[in-house]
């Protein structure tokens, strides 16, 4: 096994186990912290795939902003942060079967794709993927339209949030 494979296996184990802990732990703050661990594992995966920019953006947005907001909201909601009710309802059997079927179906479809078994091509030395990404986001024959649409959506959300916050004051 190469070091990359060892890191991948360790980090896959981290992601799966912390994702399981997110839904099984009864303490809400612990669930949020396990979510942070799972998201960090995904960032390591991006790093392994030579996508350093995506890895860092994953950390900045999902750990630095969203997870911190989650924990804040959880801490401010209830005094007793333990969930006492049952963790599953009577549909858990059907849910498990559906999940297994989805996993099996995806695995079956992906196994017939030729990229599944071949090794990835090495990125040629001296490629600045960050520069390429930046240029693709603003060039008219690439992704400028989706990029601008997304920014208008975010701007609208921002204006809406400001409006709601200021209207409730009166």
């Amino acid at each position, binding site marked *: 096994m*190469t070091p990359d494979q060892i890191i991948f296996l360790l980090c896959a184990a981290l992601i799966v186990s912390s994702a399981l802990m997110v839904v099984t732990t009864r303490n809400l*703050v612990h669930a949020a912290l396990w979510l942070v661990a799972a998201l960090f594992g995904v960032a390591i995966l991006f790093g392994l795939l030579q996508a350093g920019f995506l890895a860092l953006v994953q950390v*900045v947005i999902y750990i630095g902003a969203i997870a911190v907001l989650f*924990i804040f909201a959880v*801490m401010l909601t209830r005094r007793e942060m333990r969930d006492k009710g049952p963790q599953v309802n009577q549909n858990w059997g059907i849910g498990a079967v559906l999940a297994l079927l989805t996993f099996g179906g995806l695995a079956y479809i992906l196994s017939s794709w030729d990229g599944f078994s071949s090794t990835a091509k090495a990125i040629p030395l001296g490629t600045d993927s960050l520069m390429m990404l930046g240029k693709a986001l603003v060039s008219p024959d690439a992704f400028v339209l989706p990029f601008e649409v997304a920014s208008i959506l975010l701007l609208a959300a921002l204006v809406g949030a400001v409006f709601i916050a200021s209207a409730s004051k009166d």
Partner: protein
Amino acid sequence: MTFWNDPINFIAGWLRSVFTDWGLTDGPANVITSLIGIVVMILFAMLIAIALVWVERKVVARFQDRLGPNRIGPFGIFQPFADIVKLIIKEDITPAGADKAVFNMAPVMSLASVILIWAIVPLASKIYGVDINVGVLYLVAVGSFGTLSVIMAGWASNNKYALIGAFRMVATMISYEIPMVVALLIPTIIAGTMSVKGITEAQSNLWFVVLSPLGLLLFMISAIAELGRSPFDLNEAESEIVAGFHIEYTGMKFGLFYAGELLHAFTFGGFMAVLFFGGYGGFFGLEKLSAFTWLSNPFIELVVFLVKALIGYWIIMWVKYSMPRIRIDHMLTFNWKFLTPLAFVLLMVTALFDKILAPTQFYVLGMFFSNISLAWIVIEILRRISKRERIEHERNAEPVIQVAHP
């Protein structure tokens, strides 16, 4: 390649050859050598942290007209070791009702968030951890672990003061992250790269502080806020919430928070040097003359970087020990109504002038005066606003009744 020209790669190459002589193949030999390199870098950062304890205590004493530690060793330089022994032999208390795992993890994460930054600090042209093409963003990403560790410490302590301190700290960190990111984008725009080493190399002829003095000011203010140092030390306001998020920590766990804070301040001093003062280089082209080629020796560069970082650290301490604490609503108003708009305007001005003036010979003068005039406009706007508010205030104030003297 000799030891004097490229010490780290020389030692790494030697270690690799030793491991291959022992019968290891190239793969494991590389992995073990890299691991040793990581440990050495962490040890270097931790040794600096020990020295900083002495520097901090001595400098604060001078600011407060005291002598500071002067009993153990000459000028008290062995004081940190006595401090460490004291911290280690203290009782390790976990408060009742604390969330044990999270409580114990928080100080480790706090220190780790600082040590992780050292992976990209360019100590010299040939002494650095990694040179990634998103180095500037890495600084912000790692800072978010610091935020997380503060929340964990505040929540797990089962203490109201700790929780209030954590809330304040996180409010500061989340707000001041925005001007900080924008301030980091300014050297990125001027240098045309996000790699920290690339930014340093772009300043070999001219420091960026000349091209963007306002950018330096923005970075410094937001860095001090991110550190939670005075005037932004609401998180540990002694007179209000005792010690903030680390109130319940004893012994070496408190020591980890303390060491992390000092090292963080020093690291930000280093980044002030890297982003605006030429980092390890920036000798204005002097090193290209044949008489001064020794300036690009890695050991000289290391010393230059450490001196510049210490000057930055000293400025942060100077601010800390001279400024009173800011009120929390003022802290938020200052960020959202002043610093953030200013940062965005500065970003636009920098991007615009950088593109327009780059081919002309007025580049340096144009960038400098655009910054100065922006600062002048901002001060003028602030003066008008405060004047209007003062007139308003005087009109609404109760009239002063003149008492006739007999």
